[in-house]
């Protein structure tokens, strides 16, 4: 086999073929081109710090915890917070299919007050100036409502494998939450080892919803291609290419304009309410009764009254089908449907707080409901966000950075070549060494172009670092081969190469290991550095350096060495 190899032409060796293919593929992906009009062009993407632009980094505030509490105390607190009434709990009946809480009050409580609580169906009876109320509800509903009222934020119960998890969409510390739960005779549930099941942050679904809303909002402003990325569980990163930071902040902070109008006659319509009258938007659901997908949302007092007034005045309560409710986001129609007959009839008497916007029965309708849910929020995010970082590099500066970084790369290569030349004193070795190093850079760039990776300053620093390690490894190969000052016989050569590669693999493994935490650290700010280093090292050990090891004996055979 070794004999075969000896006779085999270097051009048919698999290492050389692989190397050549990698270079060709890289060039194909990079597509470098020079024209006198456009200068140097290529398929490479550059990061904001090289092409100019600004970025915002926000943290989503919230907490996710499993909670337990006493249903009676919960009802008492909820009524107290919402209606300012003191009540006496008579009985609590907890079953699998729901909780029944009966209480009495000295004041007169009405049905719509109970509905305003938003905790379930109420049966009310009056006798001797005492109101007795029976609430049909569930503990999840009570806990979410209690926390939502106390913290003035949305609280969403989510079923998980080991119970119910509450997502609180505002910043609340574990201590603060524990304090709130003590008031209602409860606590944060602990796991098997006794640790409280509490996590700062939001669920992945909420994070993704927030991201969608931001994307939707930014892209509806006519600014195309503003990438909104999620980083980790709780962070969102927005890149504004070619926009300065002051403008970017204005855009991100400006809420969308959401409006509900009601059709009057023909194409005419009148204003009902704006988005600030929408108190909460819940998650998309499926109604078994009419087989439709829907988005539930709640109106404020003023909003509910405005809608009732408009419905009565336009005659929608009498003839709902000719008076559609139409929703606009930034003057774009996003939804239009008539009032349901039952809603129309009820509006005659009382304002309605809780609404469902139905979209239809099929999968498409589900998607439309999800879209509508985003629109209803009108750019208002489901969770509170905190700006944790921002930055800008303007286009001229970015261009300058790019040119200077490329210059640094080239000069670094010359510096390395100079040291190599001084050490080996031989052009014949310089050429394959520097050539291998250059080709490693080409392959890294090819990888970047093929994967759409954005090259930023950190990536270029990484490439320069790879030039450094790459040459190191070539020096190891060369010196191992030239151990006795001359090219050894084939058999010895192969064992030497194996030894050299053992060292190289070990060194490469440590570099990759050392760099990997950077991929995740700090919003991935230095992900570019880590990725180029890791990819560069992998390309080096699997493609470029094996080819070098194959070429170098040929080179040395035709150009015998005489080192010290």
């Amino acid at each position: 086999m070794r004999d075969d190899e000896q006779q085999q032409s270097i051009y048919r060796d698999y290492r050389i073929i692989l190397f050549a293919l990698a270079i060709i593929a890289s060039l194909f992906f990079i597509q470098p081109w020079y024209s006198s009009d456009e200068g140097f062009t290529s398929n490479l993407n550059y990061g904001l710090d090289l092409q100019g632009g600004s970025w915002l980094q926000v943290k989503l505030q919230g907490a996710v915890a499993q909670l337990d509490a006493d249903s009676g105390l919960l009802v008492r607190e909820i009524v107290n917070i919402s209606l300012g009434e003191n009540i006496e709990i008579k009985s609590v009946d907890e079953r699998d299919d729901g909780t029944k809480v009966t209480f009495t009050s000295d004041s007169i409580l009405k049905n719509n007050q109970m509905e305003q609580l938003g905790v379930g169906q109420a049966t009310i009876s009056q006798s001797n100036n005492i109101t007795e109320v029976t609430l049909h509800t569930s503990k999840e509903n009570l806990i979410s409502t209690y926390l939502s009222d106390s913290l003035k934020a949305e609280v969403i119960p989510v079923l998980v494998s080991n119970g119910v998890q509450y997502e609180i969409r505002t910043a609340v510390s574990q201590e603060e939450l524990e304090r709130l739960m003590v008031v209602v005779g409860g606590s944060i549930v602990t796991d098997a080892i006794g640790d409280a099941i509490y996590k700062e942050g939001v669920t992945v679904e909420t994070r993704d919803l927030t991201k969608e809303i931001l994307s939707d909002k930014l892209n509806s402003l006519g600014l195309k291609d503003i990438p909104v990325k999620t980083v980790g569980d709780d962070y969102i990163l927005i890149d504004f290419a070619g926009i300065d930071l002051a403008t970017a902040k204005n855009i991100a902070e400006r809420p969308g304009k959401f409006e509900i109008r009601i059709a009057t006659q023909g194409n005419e319509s009148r204003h009902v309410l704006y988005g600030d009258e929408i108190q909460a938007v819940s998650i998309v659901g499926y109604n078994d009764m009419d087989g439709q997908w829907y988005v539930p949302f709640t109106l404020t007092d003023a909003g509910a009254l405005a809608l009732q007034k408009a419905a009565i005045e336009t005659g929608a309560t009498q003839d709902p089908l000719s008076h559609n409710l139409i929703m606009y986001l930034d003057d774009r129609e996003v939804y239009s449907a008539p009032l349901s007959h039952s809603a129309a009839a009820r509006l005659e008497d009382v304002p309605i707080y809780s609404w469902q916007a139905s979209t239809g029965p099929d999968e498409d309708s589900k998607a439309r409901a999800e879209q509508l849910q985003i629109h209803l929020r009108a750019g208002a995010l489901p969770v509170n966000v905190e700006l944790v970082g921002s930055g800008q590099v303007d286009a001229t500066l970015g261009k300058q950075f790019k040119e200077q970084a490329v210059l640094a790369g080239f000069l670094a290569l010359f510096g390395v070549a100079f040291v190599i030349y001084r050490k080996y004193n031989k052009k014949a070795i310089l050429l394959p060494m520097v050539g291998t190093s250059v080709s490693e850079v080409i392959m890294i760039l090819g990888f970047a172009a093929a994967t759409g990776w954005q090259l930023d300053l950190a990536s270029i620093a990484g490439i320069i670092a790879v030039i450094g390690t790459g040459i190191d490894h070539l020096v190891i190969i060369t010196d191992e081969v030239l151990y006795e000052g001359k090219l050894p016989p084939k058999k010895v050569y192969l064992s030497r190469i194996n030894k050299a590669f053992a060292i190289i693999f070990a060194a490469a493994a440590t570099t990759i290991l050392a760099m990997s935490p950077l991929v995740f650290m700090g919003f991935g700010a230095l992900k570019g550095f880590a990725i180029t280093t890791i990819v560069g090292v992998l390309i080096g050990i699997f493609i470029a350096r094996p080819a070098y090891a194959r070429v170098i004996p040929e080179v040395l055979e035709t150009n015998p060495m005489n080192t010290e």
Partner: protein
Amino acid sequence: MEVGLTERLDSFVRKHNNRQLAAIPLAIFVIALLILAFTFASTGAPVKLGMEFKGGTMISVATEESVQSLEERFVDYPINDIRQTGSRVIMQFGPMNDEMQHDLISNAVGSYTSVEINQIGPVYGTSLQKQAVNAVIISFIGMAILIFLIFKTFVPSIAVVVSALSDIIIAAAFMNVVGIELSLGTVAALLMIIGYSVDSDILLNTRVLKRRGTPQENITSAMHTGVTMTTTTLAALIVMYLVSTYSYLLSSSLSQITLLSNISIVLIFGLVADLMNTWMLNTSILRWYVTKNGARRRKA
């Protein structure tokens, strides 16, 4: 040049016994530790934390205005530092509220060209500190485990790990001495030192433990290869440092690239420390080890 360095180093290693050889790097290691301890005692962190870890705003603009006039102009904001490099000025501000932040940014973007801004919230900065510490620790432990897996013998492995530790400690102490703050870039550089520094140690250990010949011969041959490796890397980094830091002296149209400058200078110092630690500290430990176990050495 580097041949001269290698030969001088080689004869130094030959002339001194293991204890003498280890004394110099160990002394420097201890001094470096003292510097870090002193900084820790006076600031609460072993290295001076930069804006990214404390929170604040950095604004760099192209301007011919003097530092004084800029100080007056931004007197209403919590300005910490103004530095002029060529035709650019870098201003550092402490944390401020959203409204002030907004104002400052509009002001800078509106009145200057070639603006670079970097703002980090204090809370995020604190979490970044934790991440950075974790990253360095995870990297280091990962490297140590890998080294033990590769060599499977205690003394040679611990020699590599101690050398790498010393490289990082010395590089960090050096940052304190010359006043380089810890930034994301310098953390990356410290991690890279972990990766770089073990290269020459692995080479040395492999050559000495697995090659035929006397330990001293193998050390010499490893040194020829290893010093070349480090000097080529140093050459690349020195060029990167010069271009990113001082090119504005040649032409006012060029500017400092802080990230590249920070990464390269910390790496340069880490590598210089590595030259010493590999060829004195690691070498002395290894030479002592193979002499003691001479009879049981494996053959190539």
